[in-house]
């Protein structure tokens, strides 16, 4: 299964990392792939570090363990870089994407000598500007799909629009701002 892409999400309870992993699974599913989206369940509470995972493959996925050697890591909360070993097992051909206003060069200093690519996105700024509230998961989702090259922009945006229409059926006014957040993240993600 050499074509399998594995992604690990680090977030804090309440930031929507689990939801983001499920939305990513849904988007990849829409492109005809086999997918897995699952959180690591623990004592869930607001603010506690949580982990979620995605596997995406052209072939049926049978493995059911957590992910220890991810291709990509997404850090939804910058403060986790200091408390969780976010680059543990991360492939050096892969990449880490962090929600921060810092530059990739600056944040790399905290990554224990990780050799691979470092991407940053200011999901807080994007979320506040588009949604007026802090929901970092939507911009992070847009950024990681771009970074991982899992799908084309058009395909991804169409899938997101469909998901948002379903998810926000009772509050349609938030669909467009969420789409804006995804689109901005797609263009604003920075690398080093």
């Amino acid at each position, binding site marked *: *299964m050499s074509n399998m892409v594995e992604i690990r999400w680090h977030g804090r309870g309440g930031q929507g990392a689990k939801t983001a992993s499920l939305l990513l699974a*849904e988007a990849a599913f829409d492109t005809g792939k086999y997918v897995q989206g699952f959180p690591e*369940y623990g004592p869930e509470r607001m603010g506690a570090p949580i982990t979620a995972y995605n596997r995406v493959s052209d072939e049926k996925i049978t493995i059911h363990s957590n992910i220890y050697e991810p291709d990509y890591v997404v850090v939804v909360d910058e403060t986790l870089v200091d408390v969780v070993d976010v680059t543990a097992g991360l492939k050096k051909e892969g990449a880490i994407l962090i929600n921060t206003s810092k530059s990739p060069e600056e944040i790399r200093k905290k990554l224990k000598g990780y050799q691979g690519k470092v991407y940053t996105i200011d999901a807080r700024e994007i979320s506040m500007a588009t949604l007026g509230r802090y929901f970092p998961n939507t911009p992070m989702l847009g950024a990681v799909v771009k970074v991982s090259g899992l799908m084309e922009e058009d395909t991804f945006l169409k899938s997101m629009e469909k998901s948002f229409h379903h998810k926000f059926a009772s509050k349609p006014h938030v669909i467009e701002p969420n789409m804006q957040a995804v689109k901005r993240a797609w263009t604003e993600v920075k690398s080093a």
Partner: protein
Amino acid sequence: MAIRDKLSGNEAVAVAMRQINPDVVAAFPITPSTEVPQYFSSFVSNGLVDTEFVAVESEHSAMSACIGAQAAGARTMTATSANGMALMWEMLYIAASCRLPIVMSLVTRALSGPINIHNDHSDAMGARDSGWIQLFGESNQEAYDNVIMAVRIGEHKDVQLPVMNCYDGFITSHAVENIELLEDEKVKAFVGEYKPQHYLLNKDEAIAIGPLDIPSYYFEHKRSQAQGMRNAKKVILEVAEEFEKLTGRKYGLFEEYKMDDAERAIVVLGSTAGTAKFVVDQLRAQGEKVGLVKIRVFRPFPAEELAEALSHCKAIAVMDKSDGFNGKGAPVFNEVRSALYDVENKPAIINYIYGLGGRDVRSTDIEKVYSDLAQIVQTGKAEDPYRYLGVVDANDIDVAAEAAATRE
């Protein structure tokens, strides 16, 4: 044309229940099974089913309500986990002895204590001799397929026993994965209408179900119950054959994965089989003769068939996701080992207790098992067959520190 979808195991089972449209569902919420009655109750509220949904005040009452409903002549379903099923204990035996084909999804979880909400098989294994048929699924697809087949198996006139649809808590119940669903009408046609031979609400036949049974008859009733379990094996295969014609998906008493020329084999139940298949593929690519047997039907236990499938192996590891606490091996191991008693040239056989209380099972854990088996084949010795996989040694002085490191 199958419907391509992506669902969690719990959602898939709830969808199957909607398609089956049982007469009664009685349930009490407990993690990780809660979503099953939760999704299902929304189908009830939205008028997608005409099921009588009974929100009871405990699991003991849930199973009691299921027994009453099924005895009355209603097709009845429920779902639970771990301590929820433990509270049903008394009623599990009564459901089976009254020959009531209730279908219960058991979303497997560690039985307290210590309190733990995560997956292992201690709940299912504790109920293995309660008289219920037990099916184990590896994935959301198998949980969905098994719950549909369970209805037909349990209700068959030669069986008439309750069926447990076991699948792994969180790993299968909560992970979203691809699945192929059947069209509603195909499921309805497959399960058909429930037509019990004897039932309490039949005005033309006044009967009692579950009264006092004196020594002159009790033994004969138990013997008849045991016969239902024996008959189930054939019925399970017949139902699977019919299901295969409908879906193309093949089910047996167990699944043999790359077993044809396998010298070393793992025997396992549930989601770990998927992870083990991943490892078998990798080792096969390196030319190693390894295989896997995934037990789907644990009750009735397919002893002769397993013995046949495993007899050509040199060494076997039986994986138990629960401990036996008999000091001498866990349940699946003891039964597989016993099944091999009549085989000439018995393979070496060892037991691994693994994954208790949600300890993640990595591909490297499975690799270790195959490598341990290689050593047994090489030396011809299987010392200390009662082993643990992925546990921190309690004799280690740094146990606390190591446990903390494992949690990281």
